[in-house]
C-alpha cells in the first residue's frame, strides 16, 4: 500500500483559558486560539517501505500518523492511502491497516492475549484457516508461545507490546502504523520487535511506518527516516545518509580546573561549551580516536566526572538546521 501526502496541514482550535469574570464570558461566547500542529507536509511512501518518523515530543508525528489512519481529519491538504482518503473511507481502510498506539492497549487486561487475538480475527473478519496460519507465523517470529496463554496483566511491558503488535498484524494488513512502539522497552525486547517487523516486511511486503523520539530505534528498523520538527518535515532521507548526523559524533563531558581552551585541536574536536569548569567537547566517533583523546586528556590535565554521550535528537536536529543554512549560503 502506498501513501501520498500533499501539503498536509492540521491546526487545532483551543479554548482560551480565562480567569474571573471573563470565565463566564468564555462560557457563553468562547474565544479560541489556533495551534498549528502540522504545517504543510509533502510525502510519498511506496509499498513495502519501512519508514521512521522521528522528532521531539509534540513535533507533530502522532498528529500526522492519526491523519494517515483516519482518526483525525486534516485541516487542509490531501492524503491517499492505497488510493483511499482515510478520513472519508476510514472503515474500508481499517481492514487493510494495522495500528499500534503505545498509549492505548488493545489487549483485554484480565484475559490471555490469545483471547484478544481470536476476537481480533473476528473483528477483522479473517477466516479461520488464514487466522491460524497468520497466528502461527506471528507466534514464531515474535516468540509469543511462552506467555500468550497468561492473563495480559501478568505480562512484562515488552511481552505486552509484542502481543499488541501481533494483534495488529493478525489480519495481515498491507500497512502497519506503530506509534512509539519501543517506549520503555529493554534492549532484548526492542531487538525482537525490530526483527519481527523486518521479517513481516520481507515476507508480505508490508509497509511499515513507525514513530519514535529515540533516533536509535528508527536507525535499526527503517531504511528511510523522516524528521519532523515543529509541524514541518525537515529531512526525508535514506537512513544511510542520515547516519552522518546520528553516528559520527559523541559528546565528551568532564570537569577540570585547567584552562582547556589551549587544548591542541586535533582534527575534528570541537569545544561546544565551557561553563563553571565543565567542558563539553564534540568528538568524532571513532573508537581509537576517542580513547586516544581521553588518554591525552588524563595525562595532560586533572579531570573529573568524565562521561561520553550520544548527541540528543534535539542536537541532531540543530546540526541539520545549521548544515542546511550553511549549504544554503554557499
Amino acid at each position, binding site marked *: 500500500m502506498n501513501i501520498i501526502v500533499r501539503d498536509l496541514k492540521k491546526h487545532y482550535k483551543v479554548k482560551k483559558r480565562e480567569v474571573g469574570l471573563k470565565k463566564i464570558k468564555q462560557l457563553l461566547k468562547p474565544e479560541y486560539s489556533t495551534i498549528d500542529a502540522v504545517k504543510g507536509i509533502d510525502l510519498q511512501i511506496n509499498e513495502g517501505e519501512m519508514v521512521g518518523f522521528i522528532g521531539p515530543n509534540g513535533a507533530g508525528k502522532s498528529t500526522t500518523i492519526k491523519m494517515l489512519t483516519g482518526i483525525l481529519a486534516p485541516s487542509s491538504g490531501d492524503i491517499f492511502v492505497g488510493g483511499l482518503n482515510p478520513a472519508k473511507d476510514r472503515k474500508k481502510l481499517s481492514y487493510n491497516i494495522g495500528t499500534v498506539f503505545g498509549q492505548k492497549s488493545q489487549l483485554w487486561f484480565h484475559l490471555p492475549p490469545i483471547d484478544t487475538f481470536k476476537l481480533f480475527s473476528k*473483528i477483522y473478519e479473517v477466516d479461520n484457516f488464514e487466522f491460524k496460519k497468520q497466528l502461527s507465523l506471528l507466534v514464531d517470529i515474535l516468540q509469543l508461545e511462552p506467555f500468550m496463554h497468561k492473563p495480559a496483566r501478568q505480562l512484562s511491558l515488552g511481552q505486552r507490546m509484542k502481543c499488541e503488535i501481533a494483534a495488529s498484524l493478525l489480519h495481515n494488513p498491507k500497512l502497519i502504523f506503530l506509534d512509539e512502539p519501543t517506549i520503555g522497552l529493554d534492549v532484548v525486547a526492542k531487538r525482537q520487535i525490530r526483527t519481527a517487523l523486518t521479517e513481516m516486511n520481507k515476507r508480505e511486503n508490508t509497509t511499515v511506518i513507525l514513530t519514535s523520539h529515540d533516533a536509535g530505534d528508527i536507525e535499526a528498523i527503517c531504511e528511510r527516516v523522516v524528521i519532523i520538527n515543529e509541524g514541518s518535515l525537515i529531512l526525508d532521507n535514506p537512513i544511510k545518509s542520515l547516519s552522518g548526523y546520528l553516528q559520527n559524533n559523541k559528546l565528551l563531558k568532564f570537569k577540570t580546573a585547567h584552562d582547556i581552551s589551549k587544548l591542541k585541536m586535533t582534527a575534528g574536536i570541537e569545544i561546544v561549551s565551557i561553563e563553571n569548569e565543565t567542558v563539553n567537547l564534540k568528538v568524532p566517533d571513532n573508537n581509537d580516536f576517542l580513547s586516544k583523546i581521553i588518554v591525552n586528556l588524563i595525562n595532560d590535565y586533572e579531570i573529573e566526572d568524565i562521561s561520553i554521550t550520544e548527541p540528543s535528537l534535539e542536537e541532531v536536529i540543530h546540526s541539520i538546521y545549521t548544515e542546511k543554512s550553511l549549504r544554503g549560503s554557499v
Partner: protein
Amino acid sequence: MIIKTIDKYSMVMGVSIKNTLVYSKEILYRTSFMILLLFIFIQLWTSAYGDEASIAGYTLSQTIWYLVVTETILLSKIAMGNQISGEVISGSLAYTLGKPYHYMVYNFFSGLGDSFIRLFINFIVGSVLVFIIIGPISFKVSTIVPIMLVVLLALILDYLIIGMIALMAFFMEDVSSLFFIYSKMLFILGGLLIPIDFFPGWLQNIATTLPFNLILFAPASLFVNFSISAFLNILYQQLFWILIFSLILETIYRIGQKKLTSNGG
C-alpha cells in the same frame, strides 16, 4: 456480510463473558448486597402486609418476587457508562476509530456478555433465597421467552440512556452527576423497591409516561403477573423509546466523532 457482522459482535460478547468469569469473586460480592436487601424487604413486606391478601393488586409473594426481578436487572445491567465517558474525556476513543466496528455497538456487546452472567447469577441467588423464605410464584414456562425479550429490551434501553449520558462527556467536563441523577430516576420512577401501582395517582401518571419504568417496573410486573396484552403494551413502548434514543445516541455520537476527528478531542 451480515453473518460476519453477527460473528464479530457475538465474539465480542464471548470474550466479555470470559472476562467476567475472571471476576467471579466480585460478582458474588455484589450478590451479597442483593441478599441483604431482599432479606430486609422480606421482613418489611411481611410485616406491612400482615393479614392482607392483596394490596394495590399485588400479593405479598408477588411484591417480593417483583423485587427479585428489579434488583436482578439493576445489579446486572450493562455497566459501560464510566468506561465510555472515561474514553471520551481522555480522548482514547479516537484510537478505536481505526477499527472496523461501531464503537457504541462494540461496547454494547462487550457489556452484554458481562451482563448476561450477572443476570443469571443474581437471579438464581435471589430466587433461591425468596423461594426458601416465601415460597414459589405461579409461573408458566411459556412466558419465559416474552419475559426474556422484555428484559433484553430493558437492557438495551438502559444502555442507550447510559450511552447518551456518557457521550455528553464530549461537551461537559464531568458527567458523573448526570449518571447519578439517572440512577435516582430509576430508583423512584423506575419502581426499584416498590411497584409503581403503589404510587399515588399523580406520581403514577408521571412514572408511566416516562421511559424509566420500562427498565425495571415493566419486566418485573410482567414476571409476577403475565398477560399478553400487558406484554404487547410494554413491547411497543420499549421499541418506541429504543428507536427514539438510538437516533439521539447516533446523532450525539456523530457530532462527538466529528469533534474528535477535527480537533483531537
